[in-house]
């Protein structure tokens, strides 16, 4: 009887390790961001609506916001645009856009034609701010809390499902993101 104990223990341990491995193995290609739980990177960039003005992270202090990285060259961004408009209509949390390595005029046309879900859009021509946020493929969406901490990141087109299942439950119940 006793001689089965050790092999059994090893088997259970191995099964446990593999089970954890399988459960935690992310979708291939989705990389968990080291930014989660950390302060959102600072930025100060020209405003798409009027490039002589700047959009800075300092002005977002104290409120929840969704930081959405997009570009007119990006297919997934076109795909998620309807959802972004819906999110904006819901009025629960403001959308801050980062127009990543894009043409300003084309970006303004895009918003004029498809509707503008953003409270404000910052222009990242050099791509440096996107790198600070660890962006590797648009669209990417970050949820930042009132303390300026990144609490959630979604890679790929935002769907209604992600919105209701992942983002809404994380938002504080009554603040409406505008406190």
């Amino acid at each position: 009887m006793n001689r089965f104990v050790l092999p059994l223990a090893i088997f259970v341990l191995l099964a446990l390790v593999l089970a954890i491995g399988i459960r935690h193995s992310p979708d291939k290609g989705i990389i968990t961001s080291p930014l989660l739980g950390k302060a959102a990177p600072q930025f100060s960039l020209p405003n798409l609506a009027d490039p002589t003005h700047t959009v800075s992270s300092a002005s977002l202090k104290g409120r929840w916001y969704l930081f959405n990285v997009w570009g007119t060259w990006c297919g997934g961004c076109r795909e998620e645009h309807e959802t972004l408009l819906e999110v904006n209509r819901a009025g629960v949390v403001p959308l801050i856009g980062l127009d990543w390595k894009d043409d300003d005029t084309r970006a303004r046309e895009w918003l004029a034609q498809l509707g503008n879900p953003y409270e404000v859009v910052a222009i990242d021509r050099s791509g440096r701010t996107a790198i600070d946020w660890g962006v590797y493929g648009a669209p990417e969406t970050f949820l930042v809390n009132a303390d300026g901490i990144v609490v959630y990141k979604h890679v790929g087109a935002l769907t209604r499902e992600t919105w209701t299942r992942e983002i809404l439950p994380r938002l504080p119940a009554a603040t409406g993101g505008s406190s």
Partner: protein
Amino acid sequence: MRRSVLLLLMLAPPALWALDTTVLPDPALQARYVALTHELRCMQCQNESIADSPVELAADLRREVRELLIAGKSDDDVRNWMAARYGDFILFRPRVSWRNAWLWGAPGALLLIGAFVAWRIVRDRTRLLPGDTDPVDEDVA
């Protein structure tokens, strides 16, 4: 005409068809730049280094490496800078951390366990010998 163009292409220095034509002023810095860009993963293509990838993000990351090196940062500073943004996944050469320490330690631990088991077996067998009255040769026959 076509032949001369072909000849020209054949004679052109390799830099002409290399993806990354960056040349840093200092050869030592250039060597470090080349080494670093080869050990950083292109996050978009994932199985290529940023030195080998033609995508724009890789070019942007090469620019960051270049500027960090020129600013006098060490190789480890550059690795940390990248890992802070993209996670350890961006490093082709994995680092030891608390999270993966067990993985690094596992071969050593297994070797120790194996050595311990072997030692016990050998010890048990040598203990048997004094009581074994049969000559070894007779066992074979």
